[in-house]
């Protein structure tokens, strides 16, 4: 029975692991972890980035510097790509035929509705003797041009070619690719699922490469495939992160096992602690899954790292317990338990602060880590003592640790003075702290991918991806009306040289209001006198009055978005109109422009916003950063309050918190001195430093074991495991992980070293 009580835990463990494996829903969509938004527009836009049309598309560039792909190869590739199971559609980026056909069929009858954004200005210019003469000349030129067949069809019902008015500029863009595209053909591939569904997208990418290799060989052409798009970035980011986490997890596990073995010289102890940690992780996964319905991959990665702090509790229990007889170990753990509980409580406060910082994903991390902490505490208190049988050795660098302790005790006043001076200097240096303004600096490892993306897009069209004017309205009609006033502003900016070009939804669509107005004004203006002038112009050009002289523009119902989306024009527009139940957003893409001019032009307009996606994400990060700063400070205040209540002594509470606080300030100061830009990630690191080092302060202050040397040795073991676990992240390529490694590893070491200096204890006993 005694043995059953000892080992029941190992029977429960496989059940927990099985529950995790078979019941947990895992998610890997990284955008849901970071992107949310503070207002309805940002939320809608964030949703669009995560799962909208744009997120589902690839740009496939086929060609090379010297060789163009043949039409047959492109045709074969398009056919094969479309046949991929999860692919919705494939089309050429410069698809013209469909658009030109739509002009002939749908738009030819809409001339009276769509001819102008400003009919009061344009009609009087057109319906003069000179205007009509010029139009007749243009008609003749068009009839004799290579597009003559198409013009004939349009002119039969629209002799003034009003339906082509708005298309004059667009036709140039439709028919002329950038010169740099000389040897490349671009295909757009749209998948059925979100680009952030990395697992599915990776499969599609593999199939694309396989198909390309096969067709390239079949056609024997010296061309290459380049690929870009949201799914490419998502897949690379996630795969990189997964590979690194796997590699680092193995490395840190081996390092920690080695350290553990060095400290305790026992595989048995290693097995106990490993089992406890596995149980902690399984419990955290199960509870998180129950509460959220899923566990995110990032939660596992970050949360498990945070849970790693829990190893401190069994370490303290083992170090204090090794000196006691087996039957007394339960009592020894019970004695130090209040310190562990208090340490756990302060750590929980820190994680709660993280959860309230605003990033959607960190809320789950906070729950995950919080459950882990509680489980670790309970296991250390009630399970580990039953497992601690037999002799336990402990040597956490006993001599150097004790030597430092004694040194600090001996020279405490001098060391305190030095710390005070350094603290003042550190605080002063914070004036020159550099806050990171551009999140791009967090991902320099992605620069190659970004450059590739820019290169591919520059061959297509000159718009700046990620920078646009966002127009909002409660309905599509409202949004279109807003957009029509925006076009006027953009035209002025073009004239002023602040904008080279823009791409709205006109000439493909106007608001119903504008279309009706266009038709009304046109019908009113086409008087008998104007018809006569037109016929005279036709005669002068040698054009047939019989076929072209009647200006009978029938009243057509305004063109609707649904009609447009039923034509190939949909490919041009579907990434510019975002509709939800409550509002509609229109995106007007911009070519090269001056950001400041655009911002100023639309400042104060609640329905129109100049958006830089990069700036928007940075602003979101700044918002979260601000919240994280507040939460960090509030968290520390809450810890101070808890300690004050616990100790009934504010000074003692401050003393306990001081090593953690000073350690964070010192790291912050070093960043300032060395010009390192601080981001929210650093704040997460400082939160970890404070959470871990507060535990050190509590254990040292309370010294419940009665033997300060032993307590400090236990703290040393804890510090070494934390420093090693985070230190292993330094080998990562990902900048994010490197930052955490540098900040946390150095912070916990400093916090550990500061405890005997800051916290006044009696002379070392033992």
């Amino acid at each position: 029975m005694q043995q059953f009580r000892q080992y029941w835990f190992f029977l429960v463990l496989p059940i927990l692991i099985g529950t995790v494996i078979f019941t947990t829903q895992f998610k890997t969509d990284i955008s849901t972890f970071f992107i949310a938004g503070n207002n309805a527009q940002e939320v809608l836009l964030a949703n669009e980035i995560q799962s909208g049309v744009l997120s589902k598309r690839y740009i496939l560039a086929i060609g090379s510097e010297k060789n163009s792909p043949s039409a047959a190869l492109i045709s074969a590739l398009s056919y094969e790509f479309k046949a991929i199971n999860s692919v919705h559609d494939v089309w050429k980026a410069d698809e013209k035929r469909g658009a030109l056909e739509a002009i002939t069929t749908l738009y030819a009858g809409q001339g009276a509705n769509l001819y102008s954004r400003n009919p009061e200005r344009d009609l009087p210019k057109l319906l003069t003797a000179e205007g009509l003469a010029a139009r007749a000349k243009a008609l003749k030129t068009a009839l004799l041009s290579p597009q003559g067949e198409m013009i004939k069809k349009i002119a039969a019902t629209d002799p003034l070619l009003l339906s082509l008015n708005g298309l004059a500029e667009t036709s140039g863009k439709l028919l002329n690719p950038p010169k740099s595209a000389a040897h490349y053909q671009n295909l757009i591939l749209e998948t059925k699922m979100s680009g952030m569904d990395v697992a599915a997208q990776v499969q599609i990418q593999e199939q694309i490469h396989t198909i390309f290799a096969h067709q390239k060989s079949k056609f024997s052409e010296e061309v290459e495939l380049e690929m870009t798009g949201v799914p490419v970035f998502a897949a690379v980011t996630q795969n990189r992160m997964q590979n690194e986490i796997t590699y680092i997890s193995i490395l840190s596990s081996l390092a920690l096992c080695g350290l553990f073995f060095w400290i305790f010289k026992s595989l048995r102890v290693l097995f106990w602690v490993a089992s406890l940690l596995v149980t902690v992780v399984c419990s955290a996964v199960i509870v998180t899954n129950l509460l959220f319905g899923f566990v995110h991959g990032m939660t596992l990665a970050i949360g498990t790292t945070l849970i790693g702090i829990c190893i401190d509790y069994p370490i303290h229990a083992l170090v204090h317990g090794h000196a006691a007889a087996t039957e007394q170990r339960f009592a020894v753990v019970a004695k130090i338990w209040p310190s562990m509980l208090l340490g756990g409580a302060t750590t929980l406060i820190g994680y709660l602060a993280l959860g309230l910082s605003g990033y959607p994903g960190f809320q789950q991390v906070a729950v995950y880590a919080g459950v882990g902490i509680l489980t670790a505490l309970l296991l250390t208190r009630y399970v580990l003592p039953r497992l601690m049988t037999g002799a336990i050795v402990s040597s956490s660098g006993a001599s150097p640790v004790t030597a430092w302790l004694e040194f600090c005790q001996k020279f405490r006043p001098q060391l305190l003075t030095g710390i005070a001076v350094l603290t003042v200097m550190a605080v002063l240096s914070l004036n020159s702290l550099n806050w990171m303004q551009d999140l791009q600096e967090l991902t320099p490892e992605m620069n190659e991918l970004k450059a590739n993306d820019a290169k591919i897009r520059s061959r297509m069209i000159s718009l700046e991806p990620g920078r646009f004017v966002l127009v909002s309205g409660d309905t599509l009609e409202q949004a279109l009306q807003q957009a029509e006033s925006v076009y006027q502003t953009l035209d002025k900016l073009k004239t002023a040289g602040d904008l080279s070009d823009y791409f709205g939804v006109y000439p493909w669509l106007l608001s119903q209001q504008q279309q009706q107005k266009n038709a009304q004004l046109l019908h009113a203006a086409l008087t008998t006198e104007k018809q006569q002038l037109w016929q005279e112009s036709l005669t002068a050009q040698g054009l047939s009055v019989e076929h072209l002289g009647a200006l009978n523009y029938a009243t057509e119902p305004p063109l609707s978005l649904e009609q447009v989306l039923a034509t190939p024009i949909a490919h041009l527009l579907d990434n510019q109109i975002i509709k939800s139940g409550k509002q509609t957003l229109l995106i007007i893409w911009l070519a090269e422009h001056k950001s400041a001019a655009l911002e100023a032009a639309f400042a104060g307009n609640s329905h129109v916003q100049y958006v830089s996606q990069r700036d928007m994400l940075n602003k979101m990060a700044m918002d979260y950063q601000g919240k994280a700063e507040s939460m960090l400070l509030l968290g520390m205040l809450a810890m101070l309050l808890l300690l004050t209540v616990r100790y009934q002594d504010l000074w003692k509470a401050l003393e306990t918190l001081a090593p953690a606080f000073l350690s964070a300030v010192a790291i912050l100061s070093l960043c300032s001195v060395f010009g390192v830009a601080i981001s929210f990630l650093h704040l997460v690191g400082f939160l970890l430093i404070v959470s871990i080092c507060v535990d050190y302060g509590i254990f040292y202050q309370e010294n419940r074991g009665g033997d300060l040397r032993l307590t400090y040795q236990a703290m040393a073991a804890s510090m070494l495991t934390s420093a090693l676990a985070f230190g292993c992240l330094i080998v990562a390529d990902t900048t994010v992980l490197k930052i955490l490694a540098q900040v946390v590893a150095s912070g916990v070491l400093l916090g550990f070293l500061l405890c005997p200096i800051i916290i006044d204890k009696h002379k070392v006993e033992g």
Partner: protein
Amino acid sequence: MIHKTHLFLALALLPSLASAEDTLKSVLSRMKATEATAIAYKEKRTLKMLTQDWHGTGTLYAAPPHTMLKEQRSPEVEIMALEGKQAHYYQQNNDQRYQTELDENELHVVAFNELMNDDLATLQKLYDISFATPAGHWVLTLVAKNKTPENAKQPAKIIMQGLTDQTANNVVVIQADGDKSEFTLSSATKGVAAQNSIDKLLKQIKG
């Protein structure tokens, strides 16, 4: 779209082989492109929407395997080219250039490519072909098989003719709506000079 008639003309330029009496086969084999060729032309277009015929002049070029050009010099300078499926256009007056891809539904141009490569089988799929040899002449008539509501009554038609043992000296393309273009062709040059002109024009058209 590049006017199909213009490109079709290039086929008419191709070198002739002497034979006592022309047959469809011999005429088609003459049309097969073997080297770069240039020929002067005069064009007359009759459109319902024009009250008078339109006239133009220029030079047509063809180079195997899939390159055809039309350089119009009057009334305005315009260049049209077809390289495989890629069509280019340049108008000198307003310095306007564009390119587009050949519509495969444009049966005539597809057919012209097949003629240039002596692909009778594909030609027969697209056209009803008739060939006649009235005294001293040959006449090749192609009538489009692809019936649409627009051309059901009067399908599009191409009529090429020339003197026996000679290349075509006249081509008429009649659209389904009755509009037509008539080309009168004259002397041809071929070889390096023609190729050089083609290269220069392609450079000009692409900018």
